[in-house]
């Protein structure tokens, strides 16, 4: 028997559109935790045959399941796909298909060599898994923003301005003053601990100044670094690469203080600073 499954409608009906948007005017009532923020809803209703979903499950489990979980709700290292914005935006594989085939090597996801039939089946399964996760109410292997609010914002402010040394780089003059409005929950905590986790490009770049053997200097954004090579993107957008042994270079990593702080935070410090940042709106 062939049975089509319509995906996305249930979620669309269950929640008001504002619940998925950024917090702010028109969002949930003041004082309500952003934890109530549901995973992004499927934007385009789409249906797949039960046979295709079943075929997709088989391919998904074998190729993707270890990292993303057999139910697509997260596995040993990969994220919960049922809460992924990309999955929510995807329409019949227009976003997921290219990603599966090219991978995200920098994030540890390999490229997969799969037929278009297999990719389509995997996409069908992911959408079905998302639909199931939403109708089940979710909650499994997820971290809600309200879970994180155990700290003391005032103590966090003191740590921020004092022992933590955060105020050496961060002031409340600019956009940082509203960081708690722009990011909530785990996304904010991860950015706080190490901003490059969430988005390599959004985080403050490392700036490198290279002095060549001939004495000229080149400054740019660090693009790659290993023991043997320094590669930067210069002001005109060109990538320039130098053998590390034959130049002098200085790297200014604005995030160094973040990685160094990881060994210094107590969990209480971490939760206090988080509470303080979450209060900055």
């Amino acid at each position: 028997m062939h049975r089509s499954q319509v995906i996305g409608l249930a979620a669309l009906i269950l929640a008001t559109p504002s619940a998925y948007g950024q917090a702010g005017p028109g969002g949930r009532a003041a004082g309500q935790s952003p934890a109530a923020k549901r995973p992004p809803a499927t934007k385009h209703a789409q249906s797949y045959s039960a046979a295709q979903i079943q075929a997709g499950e088989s391919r998904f489990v074998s190729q993707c399941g270890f990292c993303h979980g057999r139910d697509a709700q997260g596995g040993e290292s990969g994220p919960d796909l049922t809460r992924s914005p990309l999955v929510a935006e995807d329409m019949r594989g227009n976003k997921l298909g290219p990603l599966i085939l090219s991978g995200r090597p920098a994030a540890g996801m390999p490229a997969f060599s799969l037929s278009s039939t297999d990719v389509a089946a995997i996409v069908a399964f992911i959408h079905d898994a998302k639909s199931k996760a939403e109708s089940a109410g979710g909650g499994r292997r997820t971290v809600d923003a309200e879970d994180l609010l155990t700290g003391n914002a005032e103590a966090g402010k003191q740590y921020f301005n004092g022992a933590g040394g955060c105020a050496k780089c961060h002031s409340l003059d600019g956009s940082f003053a509203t960081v708690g409005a722009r990011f909530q929950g785990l996304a904010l905590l991860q950015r706080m601990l190490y901003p490059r986790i969430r988005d390599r490009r959004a985080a403050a770049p490392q700036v490198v100044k290279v002095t060549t053997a001939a004495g000229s200097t080149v400054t740019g954004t660090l693009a790659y670094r290993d023991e043997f090579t320094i590669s930067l993107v210069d002001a005109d957008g060109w990538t320039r690469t130098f053998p590390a042994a034959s130049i002098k270079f200085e790297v200014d990593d604005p995030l160094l203080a973040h990685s160094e702080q990881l060994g210094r935070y107590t969990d209480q410090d971490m939760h206090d600073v988080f509470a303080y940042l979450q209060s900055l709106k």
Partner: protein
Amino acid sequence: MMIRFVSLALLCGAACAQSVDPGLLLKPPSDSWPTYHGDYSGQRHTSLTQITPANVHQITLAWAFQTNQTQQIKASPILVNGVIYLTTPDNIWAIDARTARQLWKYTYPMNEGFHIGHRGAAVYRDSVFLTTPDAHLVALNARDGAVKWNIAMVDSKRGYWSTNAPLLIRNHLIVGVSGDFDNLPGVLKSFDPTTGEVQWTFNSTPPAGTPGSISGGATGGQMWITGTYDPELNLLYVGTGNPTPVLNGDARKGDNPWTCSIVAVNPDTGKLAWGFQPSPHDTHDWDAVEVPVLVDASFQGAPRKLLLQTSRNGHFFVLDRTDGKNLLTTTFAAVNWTKGIDAQGRPIPNPDKEPRRDGRLVAPNETGATNYRSPSFDPTTGLLVVSAADGYGLYFFKQDHGAYGWAGADYDVWSRSAIRAIDYQTGKIRWSHEIGEGTGAAGVLTTASGVTFTGDAAGNALALRTTDGTTLWHATLGRMGNSPIAYELDGRQYILMAAGSSLYAWTLPSPPTAADSRN
């Protein structure tokens, strides 16, 4: 000497060349790497000395073998009788070591098991063995890859899979499985390599719900890395993985033996001789499966039968492998989860670092201070060289996460890696060679001539001086994902390593002369 060698080779060439006697593994000839670790000790150390710190910068590519797949090679190749056997999930290649020509390839039928990695093959007489993502064990004819038999080791429908490189001890083919996403007992099995019949099963944990079990209700403790073996004591040493449910420690009170443990097992009976637990009551997925390296050496002035492990939880352990008694426990990477070391030499977990609703910042991260990549022991310097990482992760657990499978959530925050050389007598780090942010995936091979082969966290294969960690050579191949091996063929030493989905063989540009060896 030379004449005798030649005549033996001729005899074998005619009569016995293609059949591998299990006795070979007791003292592997230099023209072989017949088992995952190269030999039973797990030292991943070669006695070959053609390639030296002085000439390693000259090594050149002898050949590369392309698997033409997107799967990264994580396996150690093995080599017997001039044939290399290389695996990825579902696939095994037989490759002519002299030409890199594919002799045959076997692909296992499409299946639903996890295709996350594969560690390697094993050989016995004229059979080659492959474990599969759906937890089967397949025996192939070494001549042509034809299937001899194919058995289910455990039921993959319950959530088991296998990546394991089997270990052959006499007529016992010993194989482990994986399975972290379900509450499954830890299983190690011994099979008759001729028939595939089960000889014994060792369970590191009992089935879920077993009353009065010593595991305290924990399942898991899967043995997914190949063990090591002491023929004199007739004991097999295997590391066991994390307990399940993985991050929910409340559901399984106590130490949860024998998860996150090193167990000594009689290979004839499967009976436990002793166990030692690197991570009592683990709640961070820190398998203690890392290679139990066997070393016969002096410790505090007396000759001892030692077992060394650099464990995923960041600790270095030295045990007396006759009885499992701890001799030394230190750390080799960032660690913030302990309240000290107990009287048995085990780290004492700090309950405040167990996963919690609001998250705990824990070092190491889940990937661990090290992982499946092999370390190497260099007897000359007494150094255990390991690819280590200082990392931090966020760990969460709340009751909503339940008590089945993963039962929690965790996220990597940041890590930085280094190749570290540990003095086995003190645990002190003799040198640390930084390999970049993130985590390296390459294992380590040391040579008797004082060279350490490994890889960095970016895309470079490295040769370091074993005494001080100085870089002697590098090649940008792409990320190395396996542990290198070494052998000598037709008078030349080769180093094999995998990067991406290709295998690379390195050798000196010309065979060394007598003058070279005098230098």
